[in-house]
């Protein structure tokens, strides 16, 4: 089929789908969802923010699998081959490097604050990890030809740390009483903060490695 009729056909069908979706949303009844259940269960968890409570306590299983997805993405990218040097044309001049010397400590501080703030307000492991990852990506762009990354073993430990800590705490719930992925009463806040810190470090490292788009070491260095 020629590009133009195909484009018209796709446009027409997309418009039809938009109408269908809007009418489906129009007919969806308004309901309160599960806000009330979450609000009622907030007394059983150590954190004050409902979204963090859902992510790290009530539906911790989801978050564990989500971190496993990030880990899988890193492994898939590594299995595709070695990364190229990024970028092809590095940024010239002292401004970016000089600026990053001041910005990266600030980004680490902001990321750390976001992880801690997740306990009581907006923030959390993913937001903090994303800020840390952004500074990592800038760092890779500013010093592209300096292979300062840790050894392969260090990188592997780093990207699995979040899943490993989360899973260890989750499994520890089995003999201790609260069950798989449960926290013993009173320990909730500390354990959630531990999981979030480990998760944020793993997510930040994983995102920087995903940005590289391949294994950052040669085949000879590690089989």
């Amino acid at each position, binding site marked *: 089929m020629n*590009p133009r009729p195909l484009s018209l056909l796709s446009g027409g069908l997309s418009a039809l789908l938009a109408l269908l979706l809007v009418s489906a949303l129009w007919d969806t009844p308004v309901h309160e969802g599960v806000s009330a259940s979450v609000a009622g269960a907030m007394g059983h968890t150590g954190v004050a923010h409902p979204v963090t*409570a859902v992510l790290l306590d009530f539906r911790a299983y989801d978050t564990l699998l989500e971190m496993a997805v990030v880990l899988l993405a890193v492994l898939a990218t590594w299995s595709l081959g070695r990364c190229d040097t990024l970028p092809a044309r590095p940024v010239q001049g002292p401004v970016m490097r000089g600026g990053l010397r001041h910005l990266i400590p600030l980004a680490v501080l902001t990321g750390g604050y976001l992880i801690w703030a997740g306990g009581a307000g907006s923030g959390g492991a*993913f937001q903090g990890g994303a800020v840390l990852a952004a500074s990592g990506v800038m760092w890779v762009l500013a010093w592209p030809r300096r292979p300062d990354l840790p050894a392969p073993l260090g990188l592997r430990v780093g990207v699995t740390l979040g899943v490993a800590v989360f899973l260890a705490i989750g499994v520890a719930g089995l003999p201790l009483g609260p069950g798989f992925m449960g926290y013993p009463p009173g320990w909730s806040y500390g354990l959630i903060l531990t999981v979030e810190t480990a998760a944020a470090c793993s997510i930040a490292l994983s995102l920087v490695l995903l940005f590289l788009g391949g294994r950052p070491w040669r085949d000879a260095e590690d089989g």
Partner: protein
Amino acid sequence: MAESLHAWPFFGSGVLLFVLGLHALVTRPHLLIKVLAFNVMGSGTFMVLLSAAARGSGEPDPVPQALVITGIVVAVSATAVALALMLRLYPILGGAGLPPGPPED
């Protein structure tokens, strides 16, 4: 319906993003545009889910918010894998666009 009309600008924009992304995904042969189109579709979905969470009276429902942040992280990971695959296809296809017509073999 009257009490929930404040969600409709977001529902409308979300649906619009979804179908715009779908249209680009189907019609554009360039793989980078396909990956971006898929992300635009995902953003539309997240927007609809978040506005649905804020539809009732009172505080927005925290569970859809948690689902959306999970979805964003999964979408970012999937995008990274898709882009890495695209980079590997680049030397094979001689570009990042899919060749027109069915594959010949």
